[in-house]
């Protein structure tokens, strides 16, 4: 398999990013749980003959890895800078969220959206459907301050869904990601 074949092609549809080619799509999903099969929220099998939709952080990550090329609706290829600019415009705190995504992926974790748990990411050691206890990572801007109510929410949430709840902040100086875990303490 050549590098050329491993580079998938995605097309931007409005603010969504779709890999239409079903072979490329299932390869991305299978190799690292990238994207989501369109219309299939919880796939029973790794390989489905369906296109996938990628989140902006996934798309940029794959682009940086040379595994994805992104085209606009007119068929023009986007470079990294243009895509990042665009992503900043449609996703709040894109840079911080991306740093955390990249950090977790580089440590070998499978990083999926955590929206249904109420967090930025749900993080798996092996992948959804394989390990059932992801930990939840919520990205917060470093310059914002932590509202004590967030601490309570963090502790409550982790307690109720029985998952580790982690707040991630990116240091503005060196882009280092710090992870803080909160859990309810029975005094």
């Amino acid at each position: 398999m050549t590098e050329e074949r491993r580079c998938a092609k995605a097309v931007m549809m409005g603010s969504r990013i779709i890999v239409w080619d079903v072979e490329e799509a299932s390869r991305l999903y299978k190799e690292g749980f990238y994207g989501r099969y369109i219309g299939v929220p919880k796939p029973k099998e790794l390989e489905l003959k369906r296109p996938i939709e990628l989140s902006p952080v996934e798309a940029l990550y794959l682009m940086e890895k040379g595994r994805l090329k992104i085209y606009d609706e007119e068929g023009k290829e986007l470079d990294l800078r243009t895509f990042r600019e665009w992503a900043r415009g449609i996703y709040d705190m894109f840079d911080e969220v991306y740093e955390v995504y990249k950090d977790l992926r580089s440590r070998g974790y499978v990083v999926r959206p955590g929206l249904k748990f109420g967090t930025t990411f749900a993080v798996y050691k092996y992948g959804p459907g394989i390990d059932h206890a992801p930990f939840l990572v919520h990205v917060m801007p470093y310059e914002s301050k932590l509202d004590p109510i967030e601490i309570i929410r963090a502790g409550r949430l982790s307690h109720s869904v029985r998952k580790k709840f982690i707040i991630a902040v990116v240091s503005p100086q060196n882009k280092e990601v710090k992870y803080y875990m909160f859990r309810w303490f029975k005094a």
Partner: protein
Amino acid sequence: MRIRNDDWTMSTEKVKAVIKEDRVIIDDFRRADEIHRNGFYGEFDEKGRLILEPVEALYLVERGRLEVMDSQGRSFDFTELVRYFSKRDKDLWVKYTIYHDLRRRGYIVKPGFSRRVEFRVYERGSNPDREVARYLVCGVVEGIRVDFRDLARMVEDARRAKKELILAVMDRQGDIAYYAVTSISL
């Protein structure tokens, strides 16, 4: 929840103490020792006097164990004492609320070393004269956001002191919930 009922078999008479700036001092060594041994309040100075922090003095006054006077022998009641210390420390009431809550739950509580709302907290039944505190409890208050730099400092202080960091989150009515915080590397 466990409510501690200290056993005052030694004496029912209030111990007399004198206020000096932001400390309360017990001169009588025998009485001081009695206070110190029953809950490890205060620290002895080199002259054998027991020096109490404001929160400790308030707690003992509230429990009817201590009578605090100024140098003229005029006695302070609990509210006067709160007012007196609050003038010197704007966080006094927050500190006292958390201190009181932890003591009431049976922990042995010592003031922290930093300027924030902070306590060193020992497991129930331990001896602070011989053991180290297991927890570093820092107070945060609803409505006041915590800077991530400050959080990082708390985590770092606790790590260096080999203690568990606990945030005492206080709501606007003084209710407290406790949360353990750890900095983790994934």
